[in-house]
């Protein structure tokens, strides 16, 4: 019986499905399969980005120095989102090469409005030209519009790929005594309230047209019966409106001319009003620009990853990196950034400064300490963090078993360099699975 239900190249028609449903045995079988599938599906993640494949996050971009503050405001008050994102040199060849990008807040709908946005110091109303290796420093000002607890992330949308998101922070927006308002100054000097401007007119104008349409329909549907008309029309050619029989009479023509006349008058009056009310009208504006170059810092280290392992049970990543100091002063590895997560080789105070707390963890470096000028060391970087599982950052059985990461080296005099490394990842244990 179950053989009847074949999806794919074989035809599934209504009768075969009914046949199938009659068969209660098959029905229970299907329910059982459904239950098994549901039970084996990983539970929903807090953020949509966890559903993305790991390479989409760790090989594409790295977000650092992200700050979202303050985290408690009232409706109408501002929140600043600042930080940097680097489009990595490890950008996967399976995605389109990055050329156009747009940085925006990633929030659940317009619960905030975006009032200011700068990319590398330039006011950005839309998109900009981007490239592999580019560093983009952003500064956005949001204003609270809807009360609630909202998770606010910065994100970078890359043409052909989609929106890649950075670390998030919870922001509480409390109701305010003042209702939300959005004043906007037109070039004419007039200030409008953007939340409502032109909305009532759009509705009443459309509604007026609707009333004319309803008049047109009611004229025909109330005066003429469908069933009696059908009995006649089936016996006439389709181009015959039969005024002699009474299908469409001169009186019908007269009234329809009246409605068309009213429609045209309304259109002319509306057009005249709208264009004199807004005499200066522009096409929608585009400003795509090339952001000023931001350097990865002075050259101080050469680093190459020579392999990594990942233990899924303890969510521990261990990566070996060969580092050569190529400057005259001591350097030290301070941070490791993977996608939206930053791991800090330092105490809690330094970790707290590195970004939203849920996306920051501790980096352990072995052997720790400065690397002398000219010295080459093999460092073992170890990170144990729940971010790996929650955000699904590390691939365990992917077609490209690699991760991309950014190392931050510092030399004691405020100099730093960001170095991108790429490493393959081998899981330390393999789970047997019964479903793909």
């Amino acid at each position: 019986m179950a053989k009847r239900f074949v999806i794919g190249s074989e035809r599934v028609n209504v009768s075969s499905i009914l046949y199938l449903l009659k068969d209660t045995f098959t029905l229970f079988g299907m329910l059982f399969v459904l239950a098994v599938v549901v039970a084996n599906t990983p539970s929903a993640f807090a953020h949509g980005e966890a559903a993305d494949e790991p390479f989409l996050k760790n090989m594409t971009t790295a977000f650092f120095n992200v700050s979202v503050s303050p985290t408690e405001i009232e409706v109408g008050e501002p929140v600043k989102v600042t930080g940097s994102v680097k489009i990595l040199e490890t950008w996967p060849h399976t995605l389109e090469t990055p050329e156009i990008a747009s940085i925006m807040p990633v929030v659940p709908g317009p619960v905030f409005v975006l009032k200011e946005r700068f990319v590398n110091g330039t006011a950005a109303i839309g998109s900009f030209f981007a490239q592999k290796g580019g560093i983009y420093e952003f500064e956005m000002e949001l204003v609270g519009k809807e009360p609630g607890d909202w998770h606010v992330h910065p994100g970078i949308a890359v043409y052909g790929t989609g929106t890649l998101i950075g670390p998030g922070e919870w922001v509480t927006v409390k109701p305010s005594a003042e209702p939300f308002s959005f004043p906007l100054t037109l070039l004419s000097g007039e200030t409008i309230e953007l939340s409502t401007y032109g909305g009532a007119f759009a509705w009443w104008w459309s509604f007026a047209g609707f009333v004319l349409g309803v008049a047109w329909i009611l004229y025909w549907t109330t005066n003429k019966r469908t069933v009696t008309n059908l009995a006649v029309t089936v016996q006439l050619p389709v181009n015959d409106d039969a005024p002699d029989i009474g299908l469409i009479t001169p009186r019908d023509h007269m009234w329809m001319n009246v409605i068309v006349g009213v429609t045209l008058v309304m259109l002319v009056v509306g057009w005249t009003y709208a264009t004199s009310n807004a005499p200066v009208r522009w096409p929608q504006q585009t400003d795509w620009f090339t952001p000023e170059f931001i350097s990865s810092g002075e050259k101080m280290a050469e680093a190459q990853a020579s392999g990594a392992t990942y233990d899924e049970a303890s969510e521990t990543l261990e990566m070996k990196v060969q580092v050569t100091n190529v400057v005259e002063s001591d350097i030290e590895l301070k941070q490791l950034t993977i996608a939206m997560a930053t791991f800090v080789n330092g105490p809690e105070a330094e970790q707290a400064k590195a970004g939203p707390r849920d996306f920051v963890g501790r980096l352990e470096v072995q052997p720790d300490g400065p690397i002398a000028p000219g010295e080459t060391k093999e460092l073992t970087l170890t990170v144990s963090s729940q971010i790996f599982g929650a955000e699904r950052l590390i691939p365990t059985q992917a077609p490209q078993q690699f991760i991309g990461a950014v190392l931050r080296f510092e030399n004691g005099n405020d100099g730093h360099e960001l170095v991108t490394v790429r490493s393959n990842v081998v899981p330390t244990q393999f789970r047997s699975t019964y479903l793909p």
Partner: protein
Amino acid sequence: MATETTTVTDIADAAERQRRLELKELLNKKYKWVDWKWDLVFWTTAVFVVAGAADITKQLFAGDWDFWTDWKDPQWWPVVTAFATIIIPSTLQYIQWTAWRFPTGATYTACCLFFAAWVGRYFQWDLAATYPMNFVWPASVVCAGILMDWTLMKTKSFILTSLIGAHVWAIAVWAYNYVPLAAFLQPAHFMDHVVTVADVQGIAYIRSQTPEYLRLIERGALRSFLGETQYVSLAFAGTAAFAGYWIGQFIGRYLAVWPIRRYLKTM
């Protein structure tokens, strides 16, 4: 010979006159159960089916252009909207004209669509997703529907309606909705730029998954036609609407009516 021919024609004419008199009687026949109550149920039920078909077709082909003011541009919006919105009105014109000689199909569809679009925008977009209505108001095609039904009533021909009515449709859809749009095309100061009010809405009301570069709007190109993009676009919109009209006729003839006829024959 001549008189004989006249007689034959006279007889044929008389028979045809008689047939049409009988049809007139048939038209005014009173049925016991099938009166205005049947029509009321029929027209009301059809509202939801037609509204659904028209709304889905519009969202499929012209989704974002209809959703946001900052997509309602001079170049793309008139073309895709004219094409997307004429399909189901054409289908309904075919059905209502052939079945009842009602020149109402386009207007009926337009009114159903008006209802569905505003209900959807208000409850889903404004109340649930908090996008203000003045950013997401839908375009209305009722005015265009009236003019296209009028064209069918005057020409009594689907071919002529597709040739004349489709162009009327394209211009009417654009002109009617340009009236509420005009205010949103005014230039304003925002983020150190001068941009239109519609642009400000697009930037400020965050769409995380619809980045700005995805907007298919006029951005300036070599094909600028001395800056008169709007008129070139409208001419092309008429052609696109013509194609849409015949897709609608196809749906009406082969997907909607033909299966019903076949079903009726088997009864």
